[in-house]
């Protein structure tokens, strides 16, 4: 089984940047450091490892968004992806929700042959985690979410997924959609020679209308705000003072523990 792997990625505010809501009630990302979504990096790394192991022949990275998203595609190419696709969503970009992205990916896959879609389990900006299962549903493919291990088998894939109390291991038959936990693979460092090489790799730009999908947002953000700040706490000098402070607040009042 030698297949091609599609890795959908997203350009997000870097995880080390603290995001704030500005006076007009929006998140202004101008000037903020942007990165490849960390979970997508893990997905891409796993895809590259599968190619290096001979399970796959080709790894394509794809993103939906504006022309500015080409920077993260170049990063992905420098990590080792064979080629990249930008679905330019132009004026429809603000209206893209999870289903819009899943529909664009579904339309792209209708005319391109991939045996595995491997993406991050959630984007760290909107924290929804819906696209992988939505795409699998549209394709009627099996799905494995929050994967921490993924291996090819004779008939498909064996995937270990995080669940509420541990892990669950599933056998998935045929092509499938898998979303990566941070534990699936440790992303490799990008080297300077590879950054130079990545500039020569193919990056295709497709207008979203060529896919025949009109993203109609079903979920709309009405307002953004900062979370309420917690009241400033107290500092205690000793464990005895800590125990007294806990007792004074009666924090164990409902829990049956003697403070």
């Amino acid at each position, binding site marked *: 089984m030698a297949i091609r792997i599609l890795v959908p990625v997203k350009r997000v505010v870097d995880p080390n940047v*603290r*995001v704030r809501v500005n006076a007009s009630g929006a998140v202004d990302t101008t000037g903020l450091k942007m990165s490849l979504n960390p979970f997508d990096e893990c997905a891409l790394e796993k895809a590259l490892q599968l190619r290096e192991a001979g399970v796959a022949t080709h790894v394509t990275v794809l993103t939906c968004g504006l022309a500015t998203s080409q920077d993260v595609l170049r990063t992905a190419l420098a990590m080792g992806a064979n080629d990249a696709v930008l679905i330019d969503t132009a004026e429809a970009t603000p209206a893209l929700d*999870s*289903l819009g992205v*899943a529909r664009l990916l579904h339309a792209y896959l209708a005319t391109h042959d991939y045996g595995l879609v491997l993406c991050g*389990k*959630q984007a*760290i900006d909107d*924290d929804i*985690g*819906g*696209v992988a*299962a*939505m795409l*699998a*549903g*549209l394709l009627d493919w*099996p*799905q494995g*979410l929050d994967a921490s291990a993924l291996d090819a088998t004779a008939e*498909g894939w064996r995937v270990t997924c*995080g*669940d*509420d*109390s*541990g*892990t*669950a*291991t*599933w*056998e*998935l*038959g*045929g092509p*499938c959609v898998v979303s990566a936990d941070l*534990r699936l693979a440790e992303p490799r460092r990008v080297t300077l020679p590879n950054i130079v090489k990545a500039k020569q790799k193919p990056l295709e730009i497709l207008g979203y209308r060529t896919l025949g999908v009109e993203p109609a947002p*079903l*979920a*709309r*953000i*009405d*307002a*953004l705000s*900062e*979370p309420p700040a*917690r*009241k400033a*706490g*107290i*500092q*205690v000098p*000793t*464990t005895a*003072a*800590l*125990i007294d402070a806990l007792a004074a607040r009666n924090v*164990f009042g*409902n*829990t049956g*523990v003697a403070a």
Partner: protein
Amino acid sequence: MRTLVLAETENGQVADAALRTVSAASERGLPVDLLVLDASAAESAARVAGISRVLVAAAASVDIAPETLAARLALLASDYSLIAAAHRTLGRSALPRAAARAGGAFLSDITAVAGANQFVRGLYAGSVVSNVSTAAATTFATFRASSWPAAGSGEQAADIVVLPVLDSFAKTRLVERHTANQSGQDLASARIVVSGGRGLGSQENMERLGHFAAQIGAALGASRAAVDAGYVSNTAQVGQTGKTVAPDVYFAFGISGAIQHLAGMKDSKVIVAINKDPDAPIFSVADIGLVGDLFEVLGELERHAGAAR
């Protein structure tokens, strides 16, 4: 229109997280139905306060594949304006798939209900609060159970409707489940959580913290750094990519307090932080902070808890 709550069950009873989701769904002011996958739980589900009907979709096994459940939910979607579940693995994997198949919207980890189709949820690891509205015929959404109290028991039993059996999705098969060792308390619903970070320094020390947690009836949590260092299994992870907790008391031992960790615990009622670094960000959210050696503090707390018993 009505609301359907996917109710996970344990030993024939509706799970606590599902009861809390019922409370969330009830805030829309529309009739609420429950969907249970275990026929033996139907009777107890019918006595949950405030619900109209119990739909029983008996699964071939308790380990229903999310693909099979999603097909069921998509078939039911036309009767419901909201299909809700607790923000747990089953809901997180089945609801978005069902939403795509039914052409509905999907939202996750809702923390408040602002209207029939208006919800509140966090973005950027909880750094931003967003008010979201949906324009779909059916919205599929997972709810942060700890944000609501559990629904009680009603006087009257609701009607029970048994749904026809559906074929299982053929291309997915469960091989095995592995349950990680953890202290007796369920992390997501514990009243006290004792968490350790990289400051613990070793697996042995994390085990010691786990004993202290058990001693005071708490669940053991951990930061991602502690999980990545191999001190504890990842089911203990609290944060953006782990579990979200809101206990009465949250103890953070040797946790620096990265934004991704704070996302998982800052709704705790009282936060106690013990860290040797006075500049650790965890102190910015702590109600009670103690700058010092966590092992000394832990030793004194262990003796205190032992003496109090």
